[in-house]
């Protein structure tokens, strides 16, 4: 984490990848405790990763990393539980026969996710959307993306950062309602 904060993106990526199973375990445990469907776990893990990223300046380098991470995950799980409290849950067992179309259902769900994501993206400013699309979705390196979009690399990074932040806000608003 120290290397990551010092600007080493590769170390950051390695760290996040290594942390994901740990976060997933915390989220799974919390899900089990609050009786949340385990299907929501991956969402919670991703929200935790995003929160960790946006709030990483709050980590005190002299303190252990784990309690800090666990607290972020807990906060996100509370959010998730609160949201779930507002949603009416329908037991899908009754519709099992109707819904059981494995390949199709999966593709359908992916399509829904994709649309949700695109709808959120549409709410960003053009600059942020283009930056996010290039870096996060098409996977271009910031330098290439900056060249294609005709902006400086720094400006592009700022757009990606602001875009991620607004996406987190939008996502929260969309799911809290």
């Amino acid at each position: 984490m120290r290397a990551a904060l010092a600007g080493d993106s590769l170390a950051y990526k390695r760290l996040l990848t290594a942390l994901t199973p740990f976060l997933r375990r915390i989220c799974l445990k919390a899900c089990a405790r609050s009786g949340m469907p385990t299907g929501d776990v991956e969402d919670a893990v991703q929200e935790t990763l995003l929160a960790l990223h946006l709030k990483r300046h709050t980590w005190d380098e002299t303190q252990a990393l784990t309690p800090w991470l666990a607290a972020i995950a807990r906060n996100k799980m509370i959010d998730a539980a609160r949201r779930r409290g507002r949603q009416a849950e329908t037991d899908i067992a009754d519709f099992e026969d109707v819904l059981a179309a494995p390949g199709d259902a999966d593709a359908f769900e992916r399509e829904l996710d994709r649309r949700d994501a695109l709808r959120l993206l549409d709410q960003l400013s053009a600059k942020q959307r283009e930056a996010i699309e290039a870096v996060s979705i098409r996977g271009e390196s910031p330098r290439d993306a900056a060249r294609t979009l005709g902006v400086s690399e720094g400006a592009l990074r700022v757009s990606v950062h602001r875009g991620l932040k607004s996406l987190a806000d939008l996502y929260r608003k969309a799911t809290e309602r």
Partner: protein
Amino acid sequence: MKTEDLIAAIAADNQSRGAPMSRAFAVDLGAGFLVSAALFFATMGLRPTFFTSLGDPRFVFKFVFSLTMAASGFFLAWRLSRPGADPGFASKTVFLAPILVLLASLAEMAATPPSLWAARMIGHNAVHCLLAIPAMSLAPLAGLLVALRHGAPSNGRRAGAAAALAAAGLAATLYAMNCPDDSPFFLAVWYMIATSIVVGFGWLAGGRLLRW
């Protein structure tokens, strides 16, 4: 979105990072306090006897009390601003100011005849105190809440209440420079009520505003 994709996107965004917490606290609280100080000098100003009273232990104690409150609230808010931080010792310091005013009140009881107690407690203008302290704490409270939003408190309400204690302490420090009542009895009743109003407000505001 797959988790690996998210990780890649996040890692690509490693360059831009939030300012350090210490700067956020210093800038936001500093700005809030300046607004309140400007408000104070524009509308109230120092009391005429300000400089001659500096030798009076009662007058000086008002600032000991209010600054203790501000410092303990600030200390606690600072500790609560990070996820998973253990406030530990900081949460106990908030009792320091009430204990001080209690001890000072006991000293005041020993030093003054009981016939004066009621008059000193009611003071000259309690309503003014109850309005001025909350009013002047708004700007520092707003500043601290902005700083806390920049951070990530695990418990928004508690962090909001701690911020409010700090803000009320600063407001009380300003107000004490104008307030004609110096008795610890007055502090123990009216300053404490005014502070409780602000802390209650901070608790509620923190619960709403400090989610992340």
